[in-house]
């Protein structure tokens, strides 16, 4: 029973207490020691997240090492990973201001990052040809609105067909904001509902705990 308490109940209680503390602090003026605790807790979260990333890299490295030792298909690529990791982390751990470390970041990491981000343009273009068809009226509405707004936004669009600008602006300011407003209101309620389910200990999947049906917790 006490094992259940430590492994299961206390984490859930802890979640609830911390969450309610955050909410109360926002609505009621609090004496300084309590606000200080909350600020400290939030910085704990950032520290734990940073530690989580380090843990992730360690696990990823173990996975690559295992791949190499088992000679799984494509194991030689893992060597590239290891070399990259060892060089950059060795440089970076000496100092994050190390010039070679920053050079690698600016000239290798960042360009690949931008290039990968920009892949979206290619996939959007091929999606335009493949899925953007007026199959039914739902798809047609989406298609027409996207077409008009996009035409408004490219510099030459307004020259080809001037009315797209007022139409596009109107779509953007009225029906579109109205649509998103309803969605945002819904999402906000979804977050509140989620919070209540988590804080009452009903939803506990994120703790890796299997759900137990209709059982008081």
């Amino acid at each position, binding site marked *: 029973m006490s094992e259940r308490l430590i492994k299961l109940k206390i984490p859930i209680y802890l979640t609830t207490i911390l969450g309610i503390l955050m909410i109360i602090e926002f609505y009621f003026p609090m004496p300084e020691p309590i606000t200080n605790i909350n600020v400290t807790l939030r910085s704990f979260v950032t520290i734990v997240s940073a*530690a989580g990333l380090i843990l992730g890299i360690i696990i990823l490295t173990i996975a690559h090492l295992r791949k190499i030792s088992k000679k799984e298909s494509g194991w030689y690529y893992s060597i590239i990973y290891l070399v990259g990791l060892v060089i950059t982390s060795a440089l970076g751990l000496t100092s994050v201001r190390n010039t070679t470390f920053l050079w690698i970041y600016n000239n290798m990491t960042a360009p690949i990052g931008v290039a990968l981000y920009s892949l979206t343009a290619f996939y959007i273009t091929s999606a335009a040809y493949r899925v953007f068809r007026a199959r039914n009226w739902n798809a047609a509405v989406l298609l027409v609105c996207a077409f008009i707004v996009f035409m408004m936004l490219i510099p030459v669009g307004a020259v080809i067909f001037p009315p797209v600008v007022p139409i596009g602006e109107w779509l953007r300011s009225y029906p579109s904001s109205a649509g998103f407003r309803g969605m945002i209101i819904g999402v906000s309620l979804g977050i509140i509902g989620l919070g209540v389910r988590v804080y009452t200990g009903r939803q506990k999947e994120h703790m890796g705990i299997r759900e137990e049906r209709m059982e008081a917790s």
Partner: protein
Amino acid sequence: MMDQMLLGLIVGSAVSIGAYSVLIGDNPISKITENLYMGILGGYILATNWDFINKNAFTRIQGGQYIYVLAIILSLMLFTRLKREWIWVSRYPVALTVGVGLGLAMRATVITDFLGQIKATILPLNSINNLIMLIGTVTTTAYFLFTREYKGTYKYINQTGRLFLLVAFGVAYGQTVSFRYELVIGRLVDMLRPEVAMYTYAFIFIVAIVLAIGYLTKKITWYS
């Protein structure tokens, strides 16, 4: 100094071509870039996060804020998952993250999202546009009702709500597309600078030859 910058642009151009090769489908060039990127990014994440912990926890502990020892303990608790029987220990840092995070999300969403959007919708109904705004917001809000069956009056409300949602999605789609082209252009501008362009062409040429040989000899799978 200048040489380092030029070298940087050339290397940047080479790795970008490696990244763009993924457009062809899985191939050795993109695999090499993938693992290289994962490695250097992993090293970067390792170093910067270690630096962050150092600055925000260890330095503070040295400065007398002993409460931060707790943050270190919580962080170490995450690492217990490397041993299977100890996995439950990592629930504590998870409880901290989720508890605090959800609390922060919940407390803010009521005012900024829920009330903020309602406030913006309270408009005098003296123009078609304001009326559309009200109808749109009300019907899309109603679109998400879970306790109403899809029939009767609600069916029409639901359909109207869906229409507004689709318009919103279309507008957001068009909006995002134009931004995406700017990203490629930004990268291409750097790759096609006069002093780098020759190298870029050479890299493209090499990659094309390697891949063409690979595909023709069936050493690399061509996905269609």
